[in-house]
């Protein structure tokens, strides 16, 4: 167990880090990876982290008063941009997770399509649903405090980032 978790485990605090996990336009590989990390970390993390919003694993979710929002995926539409702004308003810190959120790629592929590539069926989707003109990385829409890069995210980088915020919020385990 690393230093931050050791300290949290040994402490006498009364709160957990309130975390939200959100996915937008992507393949959700980092969400899958996070779920697999729970094989080894579920007991350890649930002592110090409250997964307050995580649609992948929970029906009852809230994004109120998040300490950290982890956001995966690129932003494809005004409605997604609106949602991610709401996340920003409800979270003290926002971390972009994975290549699509950090750089937009490969979800931004359609930004480079020339017209002849947009066949009738694609155009129908673009016209019929509320696609934005361009797909954007997360920091093209909101302020981002940290990035965990990789496709999928690099595990070590994610763990370092999580520990950074456990330290920052001086989270300790329920006594």
């Amino acid at each position, binding site marked *: 167990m690393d230093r931050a978790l050791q300290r949290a485990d040994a402490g006498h605090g009364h709160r957990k880090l309130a975390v939200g996990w959100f*996915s*937008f*336009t*992507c*393949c*959700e*590989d*980092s*969400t*899958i*990876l996070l*779920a*697999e990390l*729970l*094989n*080894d970390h*579920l*007991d350890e993390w*649930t002592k110090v982290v409250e*997964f307050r919003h*995580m*649609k*992948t*694993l*929970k*029906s*009852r*979710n809230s994004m109120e008063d998040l300490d950290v929002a982890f956001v995966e995926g690129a932003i*494809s*539409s005004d409605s*997604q941009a609106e949602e991610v702004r709401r996340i920003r308003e409800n979270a003290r810190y926002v971390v972009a997770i994975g290549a699509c959120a950090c750089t937009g790629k*490969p*979800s931004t*592929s*359609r930004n*480079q*399509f020339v017209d002849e*590539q*947009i*066949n009738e*069926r*694609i155009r*129908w*989707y673009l016209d*019929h*649903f509320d*696609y934005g003109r361009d*797909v954007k990385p997360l920091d093209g829409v909101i302020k981002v405090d940290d990035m965990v890069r990789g*496709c*999928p995210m690099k595990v070590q980088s994610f763990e370092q980032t999580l520990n950074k915020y456990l330290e920052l919020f001086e989270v300790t385990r329920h006594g």
Partner: protein
Amino acid sequence: MANRNIVIDAITKIEGNAGLEVVVEDGAVKDLRFKITDYRRFLTVAARGKRTVAVPSFLSRICGTCSVSHLFASLMAIESAQGIEVTEQTRTLRRLAYDGLMIRDHALHLYFFVLPDVLGVDSIFDIPDDPGSLGHTLLRDSFDIKRLGTDISNAVAGAAIHAPLPTVGGFLRNPDQTKFPDLATRLEAVRPQVLRGIEAFLEWDASLVRNSDYLCLRNDERFDFLEGDVLNSNGERVSESRFADYLQYVRIPHSQAEGYRFSDTQEDYLVGALARINLSRDILHPRTRADAADALSAFPSDNIYHNNLAQAVEVLHCVDEAIDILNTIRVADEGPVRDPARSGRGVALIEAPRGLLCHSATVSDEGIVEDYDVVVPTAQNQINIENDLRYHFERNLDKDDDSLKLDAEGIIRAYDPCMSCATNFLKMDLTRR
């Protein structure tokens, strides 16, 4: 996950978000819309103009949870277009890597998404930390099972998600065989835990029975996810190269995913573990057939919730097949088979965890991908899902809204429609007038 494109023009994978709108008027279901709401990324369009060797890795990004399925389907489609015959060792190693995928992917769905329903809790975070409780035991079982799936993928393909080692013609690097005995030992040790899971899903009494046509890949030699012809409930077979011709594309105005009917029946149909076990349980691994006999006696089944039980049985089959391969293979120092580029079109039809997956690639004589199509399982199941929901709602309007929402989520989740749809979340608006 979700979902996907499938078909004939499926350009991106669909997973993530789904919604349901139901309108009840005068005590009857007037309108029901199951909506896949993920935004498309049009990756198959973006694949055009790329070199063949770059495309499979790119298209594995269609799906985070079954990326290995898209990777292998793409490799096989391009190999078919290029006339490349891979070695027997490559075919066997792909089967082994695929066993790892199925073990991890099915177990994630069964234990992280469905098990809370079985236990009557909201999420895995709500399973009591009580070593004496079944939920606690099953959840810990899942850690061991999923870890093994990932470790098999790591050993053979370099990673469980967006694996770097499989390439056109074979593998960039041969696996380290010294890791195989330990994997085989661990797989043998995990069998009782897998059987405990099968028992739990067999005892779960959730039920929704509606007759459906089933489609799956059938290889008469063995229960096979990667090679075979398409078999339907009537015993008719279609070769992989003709599969797309049999699909009738259906545009669904309220969904960002296509739907499909099978054109010889004009009916909805179901793909996935339930179809595979219904139609091919006779050729499961002998150890699986023996030790999961009680569960297999439930099949053939038209209960959509038995898709979960079928997945649990497939986990055991993949454990047993992987043990055999790990114990018998002798890995030679092979490089990938590569031939000069040639123009052609190739089709690969395989079983992804959620059902039939079709990739087709058109390649120029310079080795450039000119056109690409994907048909994914969740798109094929979409009409079936909507019809199942309608069937259930029409017969259960006496239930309150919350109960109906729970039922709807359970039905949708039973299909395991790629990641996000299979999560414990469904945006649903129910309007009563």
